[in-house]
């Protein structure tokens, strides 16, 4: 094997496999104080023993290993990442610069309030902006992600009904919902009743009226929903649910389609979460970390997690009361670094900028829809906003399924869109370009998709075998799930080679 192939093309070994006894990635100057063993400094119970098989590598081995792996990564700074529902938009570098400013990042969360006024003001400002954008009365920044925001909102609803002396049993959820919705409802102690969508892809209001009762705590919906379709009957939906004393929880994952144009508070929504890591451009994926603030109407505000940042005569402070709060849902105050980035995004875009973001996200998605609709079957014909859902129906006659289309797209240089979701669409391909992409990049993506539709007719084997030009070819997902190997173990000792 030639050197070039070993360096650039072949599988990178694990760091454990690179290990050779005695190699070191550090070199420290000699001690100029008295040497002491760690056992002498710490209680024996706190001292960890040797880790068996801990890798020993040189500094350069270490650097090359991780740099090589990093070049295998696909990310938004490398190319378009059109995952529907996941909203992989660009994370502006300005956000990163501001979040690293020592005056913000160097503050300890246990520092006195009088010494952290700047950080508290920043959180307060973000709360106010999120209230204004959603048309809600109060915000908690604590939840660490969308699903935790859902759980927080549902626990608040439960606390309200318990406080009224009438806890309720059920949560209604549209069948197009994100999978986290029923999971959160179950975790909050509710039984879930599913509401099927109508042929237009929105909530069936007559079925909703039938299933809504005084045992139902709330309806969870996403608007626009996961088909990218705006719930045009939202006011009627609110009337039905509120009429029986229930609340409406909005999964705010798709708020990037509405921001600056429509406010959930004006639609009858009672509580929602926002994903700062989607709509507000903070990092998404790779650990983020996420941030899922919850906004609510006054009626639910006493139940929000504490502490919350409030403005007082003397500045800003953390309010631990009221006693009706569901309590803390995160250590300290939430993922503060994300608040900095989100506020930076809001301030740098401004009022008109935020509106343009929604406009561009919707325009980009509809451009893709218009150019692809003759090549891929549209799942629903209702107008869609920031994302569009196709299916593999046109390709199925050539035995080509959604997975094959997605795998082939990798060879055309793009990250595949979300596939097989929403569950109500057979063979779904869910595309969300976001506002980040310009027309040229959209056109390359669309051209690739059109080329794949042609390949599906003319040379389906290109799709069925894809990808073959990548470092990893198609993996056996079934075997990986049925017989997962979760831990590397050293190969058995090789028998002595007698030829040497």
């Amino acid at each position, binding site marked *: 094997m030639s050197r070039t192939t070993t360096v650039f093309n072949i599988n990178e070994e694990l760091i454990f496999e690179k290990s050779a006894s005695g190699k070191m990635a550090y070199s420290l100057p000699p001690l100029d104080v008295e040497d002491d063993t760690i056992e002498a400094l710490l209680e024996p119970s706190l001292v960890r023993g040797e880790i068996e098989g801990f890798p020993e590598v040189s500094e350069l081995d270490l650097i090359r290993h991780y740099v090589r792996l990093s070049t295998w990564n696909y990310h938004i700074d490398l190319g378009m990442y059109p995952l529907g529902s996941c909203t992989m938009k660009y994370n502006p570098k300005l956000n990163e610069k501001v979040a690293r400013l020592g005056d913000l990042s160097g503050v300890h969360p246990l520092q006195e309030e009088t010494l952290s006024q700047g950080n508290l003001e920043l959180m307060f400002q973000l709360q106010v902006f999120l209230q204004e954008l959603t048309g809600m009365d109060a915000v908690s920044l604590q939840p660490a992600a969308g699903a935790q925001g859902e759980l927080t909102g549902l626990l608040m609803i439960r606390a309200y009904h318990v406080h009224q002396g009438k806890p309720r049993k059920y949560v209604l959820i549209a069948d197009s919902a994100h*999978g986290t919705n029923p999971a959160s409802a179950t975790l909050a102690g509710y039984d879930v009743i599913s509401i099927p969508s109508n042929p237009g892809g929105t909530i069936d209001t007559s079925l909703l009226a039938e299933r809504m009762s005084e045992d139902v705590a709330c309806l969870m919906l996403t608007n626009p929903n996961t088909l990218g379709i705006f719930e045009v009957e939202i006011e009627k939906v609110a009337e039905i649910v509120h009429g029986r004393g229930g609340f409406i929880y909005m999964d705010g994952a798709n708020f990037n389609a509405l921001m600056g144009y429509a406010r959930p508070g004006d639609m009858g929504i009672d509580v929602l979460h926002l994903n700062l890591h989607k709509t507000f451009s903070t990092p998404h994926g790779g650990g983020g970390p996420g941030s899922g603030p919850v906004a609510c109407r006054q009626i639910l505000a006493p139940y929000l997690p504490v502490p919350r940042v409030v403005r007082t005569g003397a500045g800003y402070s953390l309010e631990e009361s009221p006693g009706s709060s569901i309590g803390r849902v995160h250590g300290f105050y939430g993922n503060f670094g994300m608040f900095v980035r989100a506020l930076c995004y809001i301030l740098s875009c401004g009022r008109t900028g935020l509106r343009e973001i929604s406009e561009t996200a919707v325009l980009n998605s509809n451009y893709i829809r218009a150019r692809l609709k003759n090549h891929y079957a549209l799942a629903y014909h209702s107008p869609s906003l920031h994302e569009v859902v196709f299916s593999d129906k046109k390709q199925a006659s050539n035995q080509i399924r959604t997975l094959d289309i997605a795998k082939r797209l990798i060879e055309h240089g793009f990250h595949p869109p979300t596939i097989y979701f929403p569950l109500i669409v*057979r063979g779904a391909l869910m595309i969300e370009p976001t506002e980040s992409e310009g027309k040229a990049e959209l056109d390359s993506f669309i051209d690739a998709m059109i080329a794949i539709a042609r390949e599906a007719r003319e040379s389906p084997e290109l799709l069925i075998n894809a990808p073959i030009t990548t470092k990893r070819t198609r993996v056996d*997902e*079934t075997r990986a*799930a*049925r017989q997962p190997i979760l831990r590397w173990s050293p190969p058995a000792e090789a028998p002595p080679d007698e030829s040497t």
Partner: protein
Amino acid sequence: MNIPEELHYTREHEWILVEDDTGTVGVTDHAQKELGDVVFVELPQRGEEIGAGEPFGSIESVKAVSEIYSPVSGQILETNSALQETPDKINSDPYGDGWIVRLRLIDRSEIKGLLSAQDYEHYLKEELAK
């Protein structure tokens, strides 16, 4: 499409074989094809009572997790524990070794509300044409 004559079906793609007051429940051949390779099956507890149309477990495939709904009301008599080790039986033999639970029927008249093999075949054709 494999749709055995002697079974009853649901619109959620479960089948039930009724013998006296006992029903054996599984998912249809169409369902296993749509799900793709099954990798895990979550089974109910023996003795659990399930209402008609209520979920009693779930099937995880490489594509998604889907709930399994009980065609009728009943009490779980037995679950197919072989599926824990070999969930692929749902793919290879959905009407045989891939059965999921056996239950004692509470109300035999509920059977009348289910689809016959012909009804189910007709329903599938309509669904696929959508």
